[in-house]
């Protein structure tokens, strides 16, 4: 047993840290640090650096351009990029489609689609959810009917994150009737195809990362089918398994905790001193820090191969539940630190270019919006209620 990271891992950490310091564009770093809005170009500016360094697809096999990291290195990479206020890798092409293409795509599909994903030239949106089918994919209704060399797709996808940034959509469609395991296919769709409408959905924080995609007699070449017809359910399950990396979000929580302390060190408390020095505030932060430490080490124990003694198979749910709850608790305290400054909401000031138009300290502009946005953490990617159901099933052997 060893509590410290190995010398190699520490060296790797330094390498990542230096890389972030040197390569992350200053304006992008500021946007992330202050919780402001990011554009596709912001992500691409950073992803291009990662691409050059060979670090853009940490989860891909080496032969497809992955860096061949150990799980601990991936962990360190995630943490250091987040602590350096780099944007997360949100591109669904990298996180989701890539692994599916590599596992189940034809050679031609891989050749065609993987390189533009790595170069951030083509951005992919995920078309799984539908109105009425959120955590419950089985009740999906979007259909694809074969018509010669094409599928004709009709339906309505929703909660497609970043679709307004995106060029292509990977999509689950119903190609048969019966059990979802036997009637759903996995299709790639160029968003420029006639018959597609992308409608942004304004979120409670004013953001528009979420979209609806309407598909109306959309003709999709049959060559865009992944794997076999009616086997899409299993590819989707594979994909959702891959989505789970760094599910605890410890790095993101540490980043926000650092932000919390930084801001609390600038705010005067009613008691007279600085908020960060007030014993009861410090104790409340300590409670969160300790919980986060316990979560971090739980994740590291799992990385190191230890299984959860009481119930194997609940690891991911456990990390997701506590990880999101903790992150949300930190965002709650960020709003508390903002105090009355959380009331003003100058939407333009959420863009760095207009940050000067903020009311009050400009590093507090986005706190209320960030808090509101954080509420999604316990909803998306399998709501925490679903995670608890899953974990209970394992624990109780139901």
């Amino acid at each position, binding site marked *: 047993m060893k509590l410290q990271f190995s010398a190699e891992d520490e060296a790797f950490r330094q390498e990542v840290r230096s890389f972030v310091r040197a390569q992350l564009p200053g304006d992008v770093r500021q946007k992330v640090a202050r919780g402001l809005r990011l554009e596709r170009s912001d992500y691409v500016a950073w992803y291009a650096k990662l691409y050059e360094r060979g670090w853009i697809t940490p989860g891909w096999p080496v032969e497809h351009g992955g860096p061949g990291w150990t799980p601990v290195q991936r962990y360190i990479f995630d943490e250091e990029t987040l602590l350096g206020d780099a944007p997360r890798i949100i591109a669904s092409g990298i996180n989701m489609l890539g692994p599916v293409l590599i596992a189940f795509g034809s050679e031609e599909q891989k050749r065609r689609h993987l390189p533009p994903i790595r170069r951030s030239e083509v951005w992919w949106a995920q078309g799984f*959810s539908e109105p*009425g089918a*959120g*955590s*419950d994919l*089985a*009740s999906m209704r979007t259909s694809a009917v074969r018509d010669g060399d094409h599928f004709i797709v009709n339906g309505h996808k*929703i*909660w497609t994150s970043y679709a307004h940034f995106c060029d292509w959509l990977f999509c689950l469609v119903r190609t048969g009737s019966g059990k979802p395991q036997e009637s759903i296919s996995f299709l790639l769709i160029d968003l420029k195809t006639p018959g597609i409408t992308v409608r942004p*959905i*304004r*979120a*409670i924080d*004013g953001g528009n990362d*979420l979209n609806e995609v309407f598909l109306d007699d959309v003709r999709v070449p049959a060559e865009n089918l992944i794997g076999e017809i009616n086997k899409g359910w299993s590819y989707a399950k594979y994909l959702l398994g891959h989505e789970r990396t760094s599910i605890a979000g410890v790095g993101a929580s540490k980043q926000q905790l650092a932000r919390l302390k930084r801001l609390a060190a600038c*705010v*005067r*408390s*009613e*008691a007279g001193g600085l908020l960060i020095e007030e014993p009861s505030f410090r104790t409340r932060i300590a409670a969160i820090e300790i919980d986060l430490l316990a979560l971090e080490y739980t994740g590291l124990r799992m990385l190191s191969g230890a299984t959860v003694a009481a119930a194997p198979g609940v690891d991911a749910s456990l990390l997701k539940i506590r990880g999101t709850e903790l992150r*949300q608790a930190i965002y*709650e305290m960020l*709003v*508390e630190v*903002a*105090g*009355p400054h*959380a*009331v*003003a*909401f*100058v*939407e333009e000031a959420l863009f760095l270019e207009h940050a000067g138009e903020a*009311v*009050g300290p400009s590093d507090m502009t986005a706190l*209320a919006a960030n*808090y*509101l946005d954080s*509420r*999604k953490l*316990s*909803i*998306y990617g399998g*709501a*925490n*209620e679903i995670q*608890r159901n899953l974990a209970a099933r394992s624990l109780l052997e139901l």
Partner: protein
Amino acid sequence: MDFSFSDEQLQLRDVVRRFCDQEYPAERRGTAVSAEVAARRWRQMADMGLLGLPFDSACGGSGLSAVELMLVMEELGRSLASEPYFATVALGGALVAAAASPAQAQALLPRVVSGELTLALGFGEPDGRYELLPVEAEARPGSDGYRLNGHKTLVLNGDTADMLLIVARTAGAAHERDGVTLFLVDRKLHGVEVHGYSTLDGRRAADIVLRDACIPVDHVLGPVGEALPLLENVIERAVAALCAEATGALDALLALTVDYVKVRKQFGVPLATFQALQHRLVDMLIACEQARSMAVVAAMAIDDAGGDAAQRRRLVSAAKVQVGNAGRFVGQQAIQMHGAMGMTDECSVGHYVKRLMVINQLFGDVQYHLRRFAQETAA
């Protein structure tokens, strides 16, 4: 000990509720309206006597108490009414009624009552957080009145109100209780810069920067240098009114969520059949009821003229704490149970949540009032 409303009080509530049901249809709550619609609503409020509710009949008001104001605020909260009722009536108007000379009151309040005049109160300063002090804004006497300099922040409805009430210092150092004076300032006066902006709940506020704004002597409201106790008193009442507004919003959030889980299906059955959600809904109900009880008690304490001032502060703080905690818990759970839909601006849940957040961040949040309660209890 009697918590029953009089028939008149219940009638008032019903009238306001009918008005709100008509003017703020459920599906459009929280969305922006045209200036005409807003003006029509304001006129209607005036016609119904709502704008004069707490003021003396000599000024055209109805002379009603904090309990009646509570009933009105609750309905406005339930319907997310965004008119500047709180800023003009519960805050600005109440301060005029408390501080102004009879002549000033006569000049101002009838116009408030009729809907001609809207008010805004500028008291907070950029680093003041939730405290009334320090007051750094300065008013220096000159030959033609006072010259005002300073920066007031988060002046609710400050960019739309016709008249501003500005707290400034005529003597003493920034943290002293003495030397604070209240000025009536025309928003369009030379030397008054108004920086208006949206608030989180889609309403308006402004930062007001005063640069040698020249205020005539007869625009001083109340005794020179002694405004602080008046201000504290009015803010106490205003907090009670905000708590009442919050209970309306809480009720609406709970009702929306109850309706949603009964309809929305997952895995083929309504969400309402899941025990984990059922139990959480009960906890939401309990939070709402506890918040309501304290909001009612806060209003009654305000009306209880003979009551003990420290006890009144305790009860108002307790109400603000309950409302703040309930707002956070009920708001978070309402979003959670609405799922992705709850994260959108198209669903009114988010609008209620944001209003409740703003209420928590105004005049002291949960932690602030917990501390105040503890201090008042020990004292």
